């Protein structure tokens, strides 16, 4: 009778030593921020004021500063006041100066030494206002997203697939649906959790194999095939005997459901629930029924629905290994840890083995979540489902083509992830994935059949990288035409994580009739940029979109729009000019550092479930240099993120900083 599991005993033993909830520990939440009061300083020196005056305030000063941003400050106090009201703007200033975008190329340029003075000053100011935190904070309690919930139920109950589409959708922040602060719970959620748990039990009942070992009525027990509860029918045992059986089910199930060791008291709690709820129906422990009831309850438990982490009492400390297992699995799989991760966490060996675990996890089919969950959100691929090209103008577009477009991008992303290729291929790949329909759409010869396959594009200079894929070109187009602005915004948001400010109100959409009469969308945008109020942002946005004018609103290559030849030339705000899309792609390829940083930031937001703060900036830069030194391999991004303090550690709750008030 092998019914006491040593693994489980060990889990329970460790639970007592780390589980804060088991201990009922209270914590000190009154730690003061290092910089809640700002003393008078002399950071804002005359030297800084002189530099701002020399390089910035011509435009960013006076009564009507450009982009509504004034860099005229009367005193240190004013700097601090303005920073407190909107530190984001200041962070943006630092970035633009550091990246050489400001001052504009045609204006007087500061020397490197002068730049350093400005940047050091800005950093000191930001640090003093935001607090010298080593990194931003992650919520202790994070609800599973709808996708994570479905995947977790699937893996917890060993299903091939599980759908939870009746759960309310999750709200979006920073482009992602897993942002902790947006994962709220309403009565509708709980209603759906109850209903979905019932569905899960019905699916379990239908799919689970009946284990004869388990069904033995003589009380003997042997390990079920796969460690999950296997239901049996038509076996009624005595009350006590069944309690023992149900308890055995829970000892297996509950630590996986809660993603941590559970205490015997916690099992007692669930047993008591089963006893009482069944008593209501005038029944005692009939095993399938009682086990289902307990499993169903566990699926509605906050320990299942939320990822809960423990704060150190003070300072900064590594998260425990079960928490690390969950951080890893929800990052790479959008699901719960598997037995191997739990096993390593149990013996405190996960951290020392995390590199090989990452490479194992990336090879697992569950890593498709990085494509289907992370990349689809990063690239706004959901927008392709809503794209509605006008059927009269674009008869080539149909549902099949829509599917194919999405499939190309998914395969492309998966190829880079699974092949551990350079992330720069997102910009410059000389291959893509096509089937016959899409190849025809692109004008690529020699591809026949439904099957997608890797197609080299070396002779085909019109395509290569994400930006020339029909999916992206279509989802960033309105129904009747291309929109260089939308495409430009897509590039800034997605490839450079630097979205422009929203347009002011009362700006009409492009005048298509005027475009038709005078030549092109390009011409209308030129007129638009003559308006100084518009020029600031549109000189950043438009070049990316105008360069792509050779692709129509469903991504077909074209050289003419109406009667006019397409002119896809342009220049970036830093002065670099291109004559056509080929030259544009060369220049784009030169923006690798910016893309790398943006990609790291996107993955980091997704990994941490929160927006990044100024305090995270140092970490982002460290990750970027690691990634660059390793040839920009995809796994090096994952590894550098996982190895960072952001991912590995928590800090004691400081005073709730900065809400802009």
């Amino acid at each position, binding site marked *: 009778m092998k019914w006491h599991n040593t693994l489980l005993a060990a889990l329970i033993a460790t639970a007592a030593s780390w589980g804060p*909830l088991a201990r009922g520990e209270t914590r000190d939440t009154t730690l003061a921020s290092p910089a809640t009061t700002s003393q008078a300083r002399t950071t804002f020196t005359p030297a800084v004021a002189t530099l701002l005056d020399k390089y910035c305030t011509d435009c960013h000063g006076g009564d009507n500063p450009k982009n509504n941003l004034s860099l005229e400050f009367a005193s240190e106090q004013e700097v601090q006041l303005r920073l407190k009201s909107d530190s984001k703007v200041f962070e943006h200033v630092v970035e633009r100066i550091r990246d050489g975008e400001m001052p504009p190329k045609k204006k007087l340029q500061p020397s490197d030494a002068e730049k350093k003075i400005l940047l050091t000053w800005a950093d000191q100011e930001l640090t003093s206002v935001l607090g010298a935190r080593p990194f931003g904070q992650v919520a202790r*309690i994070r609800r599973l997203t709808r996708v994570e919930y479905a995947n977790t139920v699937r893996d917890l109950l060993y299903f091939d697939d599980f759908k939870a589409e009746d759960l309310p959708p999750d709200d*979006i922040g920073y482009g992602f649906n897993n942002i902790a602060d947006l994962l709220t*719970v*309403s009565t509708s959620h709980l209603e759906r959790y109850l209903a979905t748990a019932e569905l899960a039990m019905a699916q379990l009942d239908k799919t689970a194999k009946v284990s004869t070992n388990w069904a033995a009525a003589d009380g003997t027990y042997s390990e079920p095939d796969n460690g999950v509860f296997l239901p049996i029918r038509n076996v009624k045992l005595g009350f006590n005997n069944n309690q023992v059986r149900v308890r055995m089910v829970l000892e297996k199930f509950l630590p996986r459901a809660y993603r941590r060791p559970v205490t015997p008291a916690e099992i007692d709690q669930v047993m008591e629930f089963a006893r*009482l709820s069944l008593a209501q129906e005038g029944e005692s422990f009939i095993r399938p029924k009682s086990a289902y009831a307990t499993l169903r309850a566990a699926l509605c438990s906050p320990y299942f629905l939320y990822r809960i982490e423990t704060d150190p009492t003070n300072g900064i400390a590594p998260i425990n290994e079960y928490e690390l297992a969950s951080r890893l699995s929800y990052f790479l799989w959008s699901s719960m840890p598997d037995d191997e991760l739990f096993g390593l966490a149990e013996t405190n060996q996960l951290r020392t083995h995390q590199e090989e675990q990452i490479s194992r996890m990336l090879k697992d089919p569950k890593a498709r979540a990085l494509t289907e969950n992370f990349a689809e959100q990063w690239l706004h691929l959901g927008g392709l489902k*809503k794209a509605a090209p006008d059927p009269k103008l674009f008869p080539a577009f149909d549902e099949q083509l829509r599917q194919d477009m999405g499939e190309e991008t998914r395969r492309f992303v998966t190829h880079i992830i699974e092949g551990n290729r350079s992330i720069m291929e997102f910009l410059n790949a000389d291959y893509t994935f096509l089937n016959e329909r899409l190849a025809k759409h692109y004008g690529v010869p020699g591809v026949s059949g439904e099957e997608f396959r890797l197609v080299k594009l070396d002779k085909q200079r019109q395509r290569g990288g994400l930006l020339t894929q029909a999916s992206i070109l279509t989802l960033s187009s309105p129904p009747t035409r291309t929109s260089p602005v939308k495409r430009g915004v897509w590039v800034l948001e997605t490839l450079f994580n630097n979205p422009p400010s*929203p347009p002011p109100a009362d700006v009409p959409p492009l005048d298509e009739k005027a475009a038709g009469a005078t030549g092109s969308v390009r011409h209308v945008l030129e007129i638009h940029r003559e308006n100084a109020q518009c020029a600031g942002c549109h000189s950043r946005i438009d070049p990316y979109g105008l360069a792509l004018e050779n692709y129509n609103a469903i991504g077909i290559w074209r050289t003419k729009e109406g009667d006019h030849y397409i002119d896809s030339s342009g220049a970036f705000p830093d002065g670099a000019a291109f004559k056509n899309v080929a030259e544009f792609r060369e220049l784009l390829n030169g923006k690798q550092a910016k893309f790398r940083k943006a990609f790291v930031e996107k993955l980091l937001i997704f990994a941490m479930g929160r927006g990044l703060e100024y305090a995270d900036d140092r970490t982002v830069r460290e990750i970027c240099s690691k990634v660059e030194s390793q040839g920009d391999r995809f796994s090096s991004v994952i590894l550098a993120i996982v190895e960072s303090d952001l991912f590995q550690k928590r800090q004691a709750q400081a005073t709730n900083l900065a809400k802009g008030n």
Partner: protein
Amino acid sequence: MIHRLISRRAALKSLGVTIALPFLESLAPFTKLQAAEAAPGTFPRRMVFVYFPNGVWMDAWKSTGEGADFKLGPTLSAFEPFKSQMLVFSNFADKNAKGGGAHACTMPAYLSGESIYKTAGNDIRAAKTCDQLIADKIGDATRFPSLELGCDFGQQDGFCDTGYSCIYQTNLSWKSETTPAPKEVNPRILFDRLFAGVSQGETSIVQQQREAMNLSILDFVRDQAREIDRVVNAADRRRMDEYLTSIRDLEKRIQAPPLNLPKGVAGGMERPTRVPTLFRDHFRLMADMLVLALQTDMTRVASLVMATEGNRRSYPELGFTEEHHGVSHHGGKPDLIEKFTKINEHHAGEMAYFIDRLSKVREGEGTLLDNCMISYGGGMADGNRHAHADIPTVLFGKGGGTITPGRRIVLPEETPICNLWLSLMDRMGMKAERFGDSTGQLTGLTV
């Protein structure tokens, strides 16, 4: 726990008899609570907030005249049959809806009168809305303290207004400053919520067993949420508060006496199986179910979102494919204005369907509509300019005799819309000195 469960079982047994009641036009409120509380001939007041996004073309929206002698604006022509049932307002403003991300700022401010905190996701903060305040006050009397419905989930990928999380422009109703009350968009889920077990061929025994089990589960998980609540700090505690509040709401719903709706209660409605593609079909399904919920006193307060702010839906059924938000920024171009106005008219036409349904349900001597206050409007006036002055506002119903409809009321310029909400809250039993940016109750709702 066990005592409550046993009494619950007893309650289910004692109430498990189906009472055959005639349906539709002569239907009186069903619930025991209601029957016990309302004297014969008196009916509860109901409040519904119907929202449409992206503003209107004001020239076509605006009605003319004042008092009882007024002419509806062209956009409102579908309301001609209900002219005597409606108040048309001019000059309401929601000034706290102003902000950089116009659509994000508008939606949560409409029913709260408060501005939101600018964030793309960390530290969201809006404000509690008046429908939820009313629900808190009077929701105990009904199975659902409130219902939140919509025809559009809102954006589920990419970026909304730059720098603002999509949570703002997708949520009209907020339970607290950090927790929205998300709308139900799927007609099937709404149908099940309202009528589960009645029209699905499921036996009442199965339903009762499920409810008993669900109550036990809620008891069980509440203890765990409290454990967690004890060890987290304030910022994280609100997560557990939401969860605990949801437990309470659900328990109350399950423990409410069974409705015992007669067969075919959904007016012969089939259980919907999918989300309709056309706005009209979708809206009518949701409106039909809302009428039933109000009629049977399942709830007395609801919000209904035709589409979320900044919505980019296109309405090919109107003969063009340009999307809503795009044509709202028409820049004064006649062809775009025409398309924009068509969408405005389409929404008003469907709203008229909802009002028509309410007006056909008899309650005592009058109709369900007589006992309702149904606001129809949005937080933007001229969508092209994101204007927040003179926002489109119409109110249907007599509020149980507390409102004299059939008039156009021209208010002093920039009268806070919260003055109207404050007056309606008052009529719903939620008395307050002030609400949002209100400056006082609106006078002149009765003559």
